[in-house]
Structure formats: C-alpha cells, structure tokens
C-alpha cells in the first residue's frame, strides 16, 4: 500500500506499471480460510487433487491473517463467533476482499434461530455471495475467478496511505 502511494506522489502512474501490479496481485490471491462448519469441508475439497485451487494461484491457505488478502468465510457464523471473525478481519492488511460462502453466511441459511447471525454483511463488507448448501468446489472456483476479475479492475493508484481506523477492544478475555 505504501509503495503505490509513493509512486503516485507526482499525480501519474504509467499504465504498464499499473497493469503489472494488477496482474501480479490477481494471480496470487492468498485466501484466509475462515473455516467454521460444513462449507469448510468443501473448501478443503477445493484444495484436493480433483478441484485443484493451487492452479489459480491460491497455493497457500495461510491460517494467519497477516499474510492474506482474501477471507473466505465458510460456515455458520453465530453471535459468539462474530466477534472473533471481526477481529481476524481487522488484522488482515489492506487491500482485502471477502467471499461469503454458502447460504449460512449470506443470509443465515436454514437456521432462523436465536444464536445465528442472519448474514455476515451485518458486520463485514462482502464482495461475493456464494449460493449453495454447501456450494460445490467448482462454485467456489468460479467465485475466485470473479474476485480475480474484480481485483484486475481496481487501479493501483486508488490506494493511498490512509489513516488507521480506530480499533475498539471487542473482547476482554
């Protein structure tokens, strides 16, 4: 993020450098698998030899948020877990994108109960909503390709040095 801001200081950026940055960024999306329940198994299955996700550049599924740029929320998010998901999302560095995988994250799914958040867009900005319960691994790869297109369309010059947001302490234990 700092590099583009420095390059952009004069007010212009060549389109070739722009294209190079976009191309490298979109072909090496490292997902952060927030695997919570059944959709996590289909996410694991998209990494196995039959539906290889490594051929799209997502070779490593790092479980540490500090090195990832795409968070795949796979599984039902309850009120108790929502604070943890938000904490992990805050720890990811910019630029970051979110895929809401499955029906449970998009809208609460088949669980209309007292403890399930009816859609994670109540506390997270979501880029792609995937339908399915669980969505097939091909479906997840389709979403990944669409995210790559979306990344390809953002210009590198849009990322300036932004002031850090105020972080509130959410959980004390």
């Amino acid at each position, binding site marked *: 993020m700092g590099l583009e801001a420095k390059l952009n200081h004069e007010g212009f950026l060549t389109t070739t450098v722009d294209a190079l940055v976009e191309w490298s960024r979109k072909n090496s999306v490292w997902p952060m698998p927030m695997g*919570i*329940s*059944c959709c996590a198994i289909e996410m694991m299955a998209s990494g*196995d030899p039959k539906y290889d996700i490594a051929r799209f550049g997502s070779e490593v599924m790092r*479980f540490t948020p500090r090195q990832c740029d795409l968070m795949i929320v796979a599984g039902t998010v309850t009120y108790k*877990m929502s604070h*943890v998901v938000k904490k992990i999302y805050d720890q990811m560095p910019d630029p970051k994108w979110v895929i809401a995988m499955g029906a449970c994250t998009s809208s609460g799914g088949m669980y209309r109960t007292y403890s399930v958040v009816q859609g994670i867009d109540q506390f997270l900005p979501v880029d792609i909503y995937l339908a399915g319960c669980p969505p097939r691994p091909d479906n997840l790869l389709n979403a990944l390709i669409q995210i790559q297109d979306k990344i390809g369309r953002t210009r590198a010059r849009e990322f300036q040095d932004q002031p850090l947001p105020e972080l509130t302490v959410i959980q004390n234990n």
Partner: protein
Amino acid sequence: MQKITKEDVNPKILDALLADTELSVEDALENEMILNMGPQHPATHGVLRLLLRLDGETVMGCVPELGYLHRGYEKLAENMSYYEFIPHTDRLDYLSPMANNVAWALAVEKLAGIEAPPRAQYIRMIITELARIASHLVAIGALAMDIGALTVFLWTLREREKILDVWDILCGARFTNSYTRIGGVANDAQPEAIAKVKWFIDQYLENLDECEKLLNTNRIFVERLDGVGIITADDAIDLGLTGPSLRGSGVDFDLRRAQPYLFYNEMDFKVITFPDGDSLARYFVRADETRESIKIIRQSLDKMPQGETLLNQPKKVLPKKAEIYSKMEELIHDFMIVNFGINPPVGEIYQAVENPKGELGFYLVSTGEGHPWKCKIRSPSMVNLQSVPHLVKGRMISDVVAIVGSLDPVMGEADK
C-alpha cells in the same frame, strides 16, 4: 526438563522486564502462563477454544470452551415436523452425513412403530459404511496433517472424492445429501451407483496400504503419537467415551454388536480393539475399521434382495411423486403428512447408533402431534471432548494437537 533460575538470566534484563510491575524476581520466573488456543486455529478441527495453563511448555491444566457453533438444533426440532428435520441431521456430523440421516430415520421409525423394507435397510447399511470410511479417511488425513505429513491428507481426500462421486450418482448431492426418508430411502440405487461401489471397494485396499506405508513405519509419526494421551479403560468408560476412542483403550463395545440395528446381526465382521490406550492405538483402530467396513459392504451387496425401497403405509410415509400427480388418495395423504405431520403415538424413545465418531443418540418425546415435543441429540464429539483436560495434563503443547486430532471431534456435532 530443567527450570530456569535467577542465575541463568542477566540481572539487567530482569530489571528491564520488571520495571513497571510489582512482581519480584522469584515470582516472575515461577509464574505460569495462560495461553489461548483460540477458536480460529489450524489444528483444532473447527471452532474449539482451549485455554491452557502452561509452565514453560508443559500443560498444567486445560479448559475447553464450546458454543462457537451453537445453532439451536434442539429448539429448531421442536418447531418443525419430522420430515423437515432430515436436512438438519446432515449438518450434525458433516463428515459422514449419510450416517446421521440413517440414525434419525431409525429413531423416528421406532417412535412411529414402522419398519423399512429389507432392500432399503441393505442400502442404508451400505451408505452408512461408506460414510464411515469417508469420515475415517478425513480423520487419518487431518491427524497426519497436524503432525506434519501433508501428502497423506491429499491422498485420503482423493479416496474420499470417489465416495462422494458414488453419492452424487445415487442421490444428486455429493455432500449433505438428505437421502433417507422415514420408511425407506428416497430412490432406488441405480445400477451405475452399485457398479461404482464395487469398483471402489476393489481398489481401496491398495490405496490404504500406500497411505499406511508412509505413516506406520515413519519414525517421526510414531514417536509423536506413541504413549501420548493414554487413557485407561475404566477412566474412558467413566468419562463417557464411545466409538474408536473407547476401542483404542481395549474396551470391546460396539453398538453394532451390542444392540444390533438394520441387518448387522447377519454380517460377519470383527470389532477392532487395541489395548494401549494412546493416540497411536486410536489411529490404528480407525485405519482397521475401514477394512472391516469394506467386508460389510461386500456382504451387503451379495445379500441385497430386489424389492421396493419405500414402505407402503400411506398415513406415515410420503407416497411417490409420480402417484401424487395422478391419484386422489395419494394426493390427500401427501397433503396431510406435509401439513400436519406423521403424528406418532404418545411416548418417548432413545435410539442410538454407532456413528464413525462414537454413539449418536436421539431422544425423542412425542405428544401425538406432527412435530416432536422434545428432541435431544446425544452427540459423541461433545462427550469425547470432555476427556481432553484429563488427557493433556503433563504433556506439552504439540501433544495437545496430536491428542485432539486422535479424538477426532467435529464441532458441528459438539455444539449442535
């Protein structure tokens, strides 16, 4: 392990560390640390939170905290009919969804007093054993991945994909398929599905041997699991362990033998036990149980009779779709069952089956209405996790990962 004492650390470092507290030097070196192995962790098999009290790297105490995936299943069951709950049972132990479907169907059939036709029962036995193989494959793969052997995980997932292909042909969904119905199964097994099952069991044993060659004689794998997390048979029964974790301590208890359901009393298979009680024994039990499952599937395929797969009892079992659209009585029965439910007689039952993780039990109370008055799900993973504080005392942090991996919990089931 040697403890660090005051002489090992430079006094200036100690002064700098303790500048803003009131702790004395002796306190600072003696203090234990509380570590949070949080709900988001690569090796906790889902959203399990473990609070560990450590002295250096040795675990002094552990408190597991559950509830991060509590979706309110029992309250949901009180508000929907018995048929509508079938897709929810898929998502309980989501590594072996067919086995949960069969358990629910058996429980409701016991409550309503009906029994599925023989061909449906053989099909249910085949899919339960396939689900057992699929679940144990993921368990072995995940345990190996936690220890560090990543290749085995990819190989076992490749085998599992073949089973998911079978289920795809059989009922249309590869995963979380709500295939059983109350009174039978949804549709008959197609010839392609049966041919694929036969192909799978013929080539499975060599692939399992390949995976075991990588692990069983590997010195790192064996030394990380041997003697780790030992539990005696009496402690295991007292703590309520069931399934492969109990059989790894030498207790010969399998619900398929003790209280047979479906046609297990006609099948010839061994109950695998290992006397050691450590994580390596639990891993061996799982690997050998898949071999016994192959035997059961082979016998079922030979013995399976021709016949119908859905019981012909209009008041309790949904009729076939083709007949609903053309005949009057079936239309009326379909309407009554979907809107008002199957109305079993007043009473309560407890039905337990041998799931891959342990004993899955459904306690159903009926007051004569279409939805249960109470449904309690006795989940094996929740009870197995209760033994974690007992098992990790005195071991190190990396053993915690091996122990939780060998117990193989699934949080969708433990948190209901």
